[in-house]
């Protein structure tokens, strides 16, 4: 009953076992990026394990979306490295040229933007928007493109009777589903979600979140989810990073960050939630 002496206890814990055998899928080190006068990101480092959902929270201007754009290789940071643990990739993805970046993003990284206009061609058919991914990856057979678009749209619970309708004629929730279908059409290793449910009404939001969860459960896709909605993050994320002024001020397991926030800003954020 009586605990052993502290020294005995410590020798036990000196050589902790390896519980997680896998390496992180995403490894980001010391990213900094300045836009003119604004330091958008300062020394941001993080990693994401395979199959994990990492939530990123913070107020507007905290650097969340900049971080996501860098993870989607849309920009190059002033300093820092970004590695994806996939075969045939360099240690730092920012060393890739524009063409290689585009190929990588089209095939292995999916993104869903808050604004569907950024992710979709609004006047092309929904099916065509999804099939575009496969076109970029080199698929040319029409039947294969159609079939792949259909299965991706089905997986994101898009009503198939609207298969060929252009996103411009769809509701916001439907547009997000088309973006999601496009993002998962090629079974990405990493799915980036930038406020995917912001601007949707609550019932549609729940549907989209549930679709994401189902996808996550079925395919174990690694996700980085940016949202200012703490409820969304709490429902979805395994771990959370809290950003402010371009820096990560706190990181931890989702329940720990919400129940026992350490940083003054995180406390303020968590306690402000209704």
């Amino acid at each position, binding site marked *: *009953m009586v605990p*052993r002496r502290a020294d005995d*206890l410590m020798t036990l814990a000196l050589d*902790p076992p*390896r519980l997680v055998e896998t390496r992180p899928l995403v490894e980001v080190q010391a990213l900094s990026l300045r836009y003119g006068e604004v330091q958008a990101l300062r020394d941001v480092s993080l990693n994401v394990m395979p199959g994990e959902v990492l939530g990123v929270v913070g107020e507007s201007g905290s650097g969340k979306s900049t971080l996501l754009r860098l993870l989607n290789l849309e920009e190059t940071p002033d300093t820092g490295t970004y590695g994806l643990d996939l075969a045939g990739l360099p240690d730092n993805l920012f060393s890739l040229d524009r063409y290689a970046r585009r190929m990588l993003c089209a095939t292995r990284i999916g993104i869903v933007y808050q604004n569907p206009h950024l992710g979709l061609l609004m006047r092309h058919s929904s099916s065509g928007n999804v099939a575009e991914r496969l076109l970029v990856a080199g698929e040319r057979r029409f039947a294969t493109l159609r079939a792949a678009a259909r299965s991706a749209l089905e997986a994101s619970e898009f009503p198939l009777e609207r298969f060929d309708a252009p996103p411009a004629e769809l509701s916001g929730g439907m547009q997000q589903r088309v973006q999601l279908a496009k993002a998962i059409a090629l079974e990405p290793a990493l799915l980036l979600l930038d406020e995917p449910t912001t601007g949707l009404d609550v019932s549609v939001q729940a549907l989209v979140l*549930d679709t994401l969860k189902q996808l996550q459960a079925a395919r174990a896709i690694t996700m980085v989810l940016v949202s200012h909605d703490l409820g969304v993050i709490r429902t979805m994320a395994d771990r959370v990073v809290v950003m402010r002024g371009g820096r990560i001020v706190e990181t931890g397991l989702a329940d720990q960050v919400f129940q026992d926030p350490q940083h003054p800003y995180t406390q303020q954020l968590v306690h402000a939630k209704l």
Partner: protein
Amino acid sequence: MSRVLDVYDLVKSFTMHHLAAELGAFEGVSFSLDAGEFLLLRGPNGAGKSSLLRTIYRSYLPDRGHVLFHSTAGVVDLARAADVDIAVLRRREIGFVTQFLTARPRVAAEALVAEPLRHAGEPADAALQTARRWLDTFGVRPGLWAAYPTTFSGGEQQKVNLARALILPRRLLLLDEPTASLDRQARAALVARLAELKAGGTAMIGVFHHPGDVEHLVDRALDLSSDPAEHSHVAV
């Protein structure tokens, strides 16, 4: 009996930045726990019983001290382990039962209960069958199995919660007032399941407002004082 947990000189306080204040939760808590042992936490409201459970589970970060968990892979200090390691242990070896259900919207009760089994690699159909059996055991009506628990009454949510949390045997189970808001049938089912898990070697630490239900399962009690400065001690 094999050792499951060594807690040594564990201290937790909360820094409330907006008040520029420190609030002590508990101080200098030490105890050990073997497989199949049931430790009851006692103390008045605010003595830090739930906080201690949450600190062991790492929902709270301890200020200092050690929580040495003897996992199947080796000894891990839960106070210091990496988040990803904690996540793995929670999935495989450490369970937490609260009185609050945190259900995702639009997920059926039976799917929620089946989830831990599916994570453990059981096929979907078999997992669902087992989930339904446990929902039945805890007294959730079959008509509700496919419904969303967010619409349930407090007691029914709690039953779903229990079925989910207790469906898989764990090495360590933390129980935070699991009997609150349960009817008699569900309480009896809970106590029976706890007895079964205990016999199978699960170590348990529990907070119970009415410990009468589990009296026969309790091996030891740990008294937490309402004054965190006062040392807690172990009573038999």
